[in-house]
């Protein structure tokens, strides 16, 4: 099984995780810029973080044969802090970078006017830089937040095929499925989605535009839940090809729209392992 985790915060993870992920078949990942648990108080804190996302973290991942890409944005939570909002002016510097494959995470946290403004600005940046957008749907009041996010996407004029709404669940999937946007699901040990619930959604809605991620970060989470979802799919009667589509070809197709995915590392790792089935870059 070859796995592309389209949403995982490796900055918060140890090298043990990289090792386990590589052993589990993870060959590529995307690390979205998000908040760090501890609120930031100035723009320098963001730029050092962004530098790590395009510098140190890809290097760390490469030690395990994993191709690391990232998305860059001012996250919705910190969009509410005027000390952080100034980072908006610095985003274009990063959005041109080679390993930046989308604008994100953007979207809503508490659905404030500030978040409205920053979300719209991010979608405009995505258009300007020819990038997809990764939209975080809020943890609270998710149905309303998802609906409102779809409205903002629609108003922005961005091609819905360039947008993923993430952290979806049973109450929110139907509207996104009809919008033309991609659907992201974060599989968590307790909250968000579980592998079995994910399989049920795939059964009902099909495999098209579906992205499955671990969203593992500094909280209780598990970077191998992508693999567990693949296993649950097989146990439920999905084929190897179906699993490959959801866990590899779909994220390659979505982020590939940036024109910047570089999966050579994933290829090299697979070659080292001597297993041609694991070769990346569909």
């Amino acid at each position, binding site marked *: 099984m070859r796995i592309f985790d389209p949403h995982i915060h490796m900055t918060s993870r140890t090298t043990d995780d990289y090792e386990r992920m590589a052993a589990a078949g993870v060959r590529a990942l995307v690390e979205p810029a998000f908040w760090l648990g501890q609120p930031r108080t100035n723009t320098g804190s963001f730029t050092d973080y962004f530098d790590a996302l395009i*510098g140190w973290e890809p290097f760390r991942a490469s030690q395990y044969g994993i191709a690391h890409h990232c998305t860059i944005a001012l996250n919705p939570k910190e969009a509410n802090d005027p000390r952080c909002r100034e980072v908006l002016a610095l985003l274009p510097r990063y959005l041109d970078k080679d390993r930046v494959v989308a604008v994100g995470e953007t979207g809503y946290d508490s659905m404030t006017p500030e978040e409205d403004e920053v979300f719209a600005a991010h979608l405009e940046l995505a258009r300007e830089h020819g990038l997809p957008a990764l939209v975080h749907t809020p943890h609270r009041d998710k149905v309303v937040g998802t609906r409102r996010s779809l409205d903002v996407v629609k108003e922005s004029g961005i091609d819905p095929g360039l947008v993923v709404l993430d952290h979806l669940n049973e109450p929110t999937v139907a509207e996104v499925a009809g919008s033309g946007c991609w659907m992201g699901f974060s599989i968590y040990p307790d909250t968000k989605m579980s592998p079995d619930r994910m399989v049920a959604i795939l059964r009902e809605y099909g495999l098209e535009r579906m992205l499955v991620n671990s969203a593992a970060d500094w909280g209780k989470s598990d970077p191998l839940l992508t693999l567990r979802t693949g296993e649950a799919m097989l146990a439920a009667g999905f084929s190897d090809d179906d699993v490959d589509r959801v866990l590899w070809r779909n994220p390659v197709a979505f982020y590939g729209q940036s024109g910047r995915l570089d999966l050579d590392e994933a290829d090299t790792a697979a070659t080292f392992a001597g297993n041609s089935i694991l070769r990346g870059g569909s």
Partner: protein
Amino acid sequence: MSLRFGYGTNGFANHRLADALDVIAEVGYAGVALTLDHAHLDPYATDVKDQVARTARLLAERELGVVVETGARYLLDPRRKHAPTFLHDDAERRIDFLKRAIDIAAGLGAEAVSFWAGVRPAHVSAEVAWQLLAEGCAEVVAYAAERGVAAGFEPEPGMLVETLADWARLRDLVGADLKLTLDIGHCRANEPQGVAESVRIAGPHLVNVQIDDMRRGVHEHLEFGEGEIDFPPVLRALAETGYRGLVAVELPRHSHAAPDVAARSLTFLRAAQWLGDALDQLEREPAALATLLSAARRKVGRAAAEDVRVRLLGAVTLSPDEAAELYRYGDNEEKRAVLLACPQPDLVRDALRSNDTRLVAAALGPAARDLPDAEWRQGVLKSVFMGLPLSGVDGLPQRADAELGRMLAALRREREAAGRTMPDDAVDLLERLH
């Protein structure tokens, strides 16, 4: 405006024509330069009309443009290469062949038909040769004009018309319907002016372009990178002429590996074109450098990216602050390029503090020359510690001293205490310093 790259079927001599067209289209070329030959649309075949119709269909299905080339070696005479030419006693056979080629070109909707003079036989004086050539060409050009086919005459090293100046002389004799086929490689082999300048001179007359690498004075068609041509400015110059026809790779001696060579060549040409455009943009707009550096890998591929970044950096005169800014906001590949192209001690120090082997290696190249000895030794020690090969350290034999030897010896003792070994090259250096 993007150039339209094509590939010459004479570089696919071991393929059936239909197969060659498949491969060339799959690789991503926009067209083919079709050399009429025994196995590839033989103009003397009894079913040539059917073959033309079939080939036209194959081209259309693959959305390939086409020019017709007439340089087959033994199509007219199995014993004498390229014979007869305009300059032989039996030149009418050459002229008949070229008329057939023009008919085929018309049938294929080809953008041009291409031909050349031939080598002057020893018994024919230069004066007579020019007269024969002018008369023959006039007949061919008139025939082509009646059929709406562009007639591109190609200067060939060693032939009667071998330079652009020779071509201009012939055009004066034949008239303005004589257009030009230019082989970019030939320009390097024998034109008095540079290749880009040759392209600018040729521009207004071009109906067909062939491309390949070459060395000065040697008429040998080489794969890109094996000759002496700096392609980015040449392709830029070609685009600036407004030429919109095919630019077809001409590697007639590479048929044995045609699919691979075709793929490599297109990758090279696209990268060279991007770099040519980027260098041109930097002349007008130096501020575009940051964006271009970031885009290099995805535009030219991973293998060529570093050289391209270094070249982009070298194309702009940067103040120390500007270089530092590019380093500050660069990803680690861009930081490496700054260290290689325009290093400063502070940037080298920053790189040496990092734990990214690529940055440390770049910092210990020529970039480290201005670093005080104490910092340089720490850098070398760190690189050994990280497992980097010492061969990448600039000036090591001259600069390595007893103090570095002491530090390496201490590292060796630590390693041995932990049951680990030192890399062989570090042990060699250590022993030399003792």
